[in-house]
């Protein structure tokens, strides 16, 4: 029987949870102090997921980068697959917050969306307006 030890993230207690697995099935779970710990332990052991947040390059924008996130949770073991796919992504300004920058990332069925808008860089009036010093 496989035994997994994790830390509950429900509160600062950080209970040490011990989950015993019988194949895919949870045989026992112990160490939690409240119900939240049990729920967390069950999910974290059977199908842990995370939101992935990172940055993607923007061309011709008022910013170099646009922050992005997976619109929903993705399986934890897919985090680096998402990152590797996003390494190749570059988008043209303007970017609107909420707009997808990569669909179905790493075959998860989840889109990656921009979380901030980036405008087009106007060379004359933009941040470089003070060039002629």
């Amino acid at each position, binding site marked *: 029987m496989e035994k997994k030890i994790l830390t509950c993230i429900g509160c600062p207690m950080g209970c040490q949870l011990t989950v015993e697995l019988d194949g895919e099935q949870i045989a026992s779970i112990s160490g939690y102090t409240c119900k939240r710990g049990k729920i967390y332990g069950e999910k974290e052991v059977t199908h842990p997921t995370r939101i992935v947040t990172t*940055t993607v390059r923007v061309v011709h924008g008022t910013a170099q*980068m646009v922050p992005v996130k997976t619109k929903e949770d993705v399986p934890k073991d897919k985090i680096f697959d998402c990152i590797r796919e996003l*390494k190749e992504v570059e988008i043209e300004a303007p970017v609107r917050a909420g707009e997808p920058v990569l669909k179905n990332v790493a075959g998860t069925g989840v889109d990656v969306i921009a979380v901030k808008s980036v405008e087009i860089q106007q060379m004359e009036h933009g941040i470089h307006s*003070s060039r002629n010093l």
Partner: protein
Amino acid sequence: MYDVIIIGAGVCGCAVARELSRFQGKICVLERQEDVCCGTSKANSGIVHAGFDAVPGSMKAKMNLEGNLRMKELTEELDVLFEQNGSLVVCTEEEQRQGLEDLLERGRENGVQGLRILEREELRKMEPNLSERVAAALYAPTGGIVCPFGLTIALAENACRNGVEFRFNTEVQKIEKTGQGYRLETSKGVFETRTVVNAAGVYADLFHNMASGTKIHITPRKGEYQLLDRTAGKHVHCTVFALPGKYGKGVLVSPTVHGNLLLGPTAVDIEDREGTDTTREGLETVAAKSAETVKDLPYRQVITSFAGLRAHEDGDDFLLGEPEDAEGFFDCAGIESPGLTSAPAIGIYLAERIASRLGLDKNLEFEPRRKGILNPSDLDLEQRKELIRKEPAYGRILCRCEGISEGEILDAIRRPLGARSLDGIKRRTRAGMGRCQAGFCSPKVMELLVRECGTDWTELTKSGGDSWLISGRNKEGIQR
């Protein structure tokens, strides 16, 4: 063929260069670092000593007094911050009183004006934060403070303006006597010159010993400092020294021209000529020693610590001029305290000797004045408004702690011998020198350097050499 090659762009090398530029000649300064003021000149107390310490008759005594007398005019010409705040040497026990009397006598012999001994009561009024143990003090009204970077950079800019060439990242490796003068092998090729000025700080003995059979020996003497935030800058008004000991003037407490409070230095002889690391013991010593002369020091306001190396020569005096067996090789060696104070006098002293040796004519176009980086906070509201209307960059504050605008940073990059590194910008403008220690402004300053100098982010440095700041773009380290 150069007339003069100066090794080292510290305060003395730059002072000699500036004074030499009063003459017509082909003059070049070789500096192994990426900027001026990267060695001893950047890490010292910034004190303009009155001149009561040095042994009467020594070069130190002469140069100190003359340098002190010239400092006001020079800093006005070169637009450098200087303040005659006065110095106090305090004694904390009655038995030390004789030490004060001896210093007073020595100072009078050296020609220092205005020295007098102050008693407890008068001292309390003058400096309420002196330690309760302070019994009496020697007061030197001619003591002062100067910005060591400001002075070095200004001398260099003025020399450059008057025709002196500066070559950075150029390390002298070998010096040989030739028929006409000297041949210098460097990391950037060979240079021929009629005369050499050896202003190489803690390395000056190496170069001297290449040129002369009379060997000298320099010991790097480490001094550690702590710098306090400007909120602590008015804790004392004068520069407060303890009575000097075997290793120099001891730990001082002084305001700086920028309004910070400086504590230090320690004095420890070391082997490593690059050993500018601070140590736990050193910083603890600074705190303990400074508390002996000044009370209630707000140590929580420390914003940075640093260490500098003084070039202590075994003979305990400045070595200025030619060794007997090396004509045309001018030492400017063993320049420890009061080196910063003495620099203006050393510059004149050596430049005159070199010019007369080479028979150089006067440079009739010499421009003695240099304008520093405009500080908008020196202007009144209307003038500042007008400045920003013309140059909007002066209205964008990048360094919030010191209130430094984009306009000032652009000026620091664009002027002659302009800054190319974060430390270069910091020494010229104070951006990044404040309480957050460049946390907020460094990304913005990096962006400006990239834009202005056309370099890549990965080429940016903190202070030249291998001090890179950025390793690359995001995700470059992610393997496919």
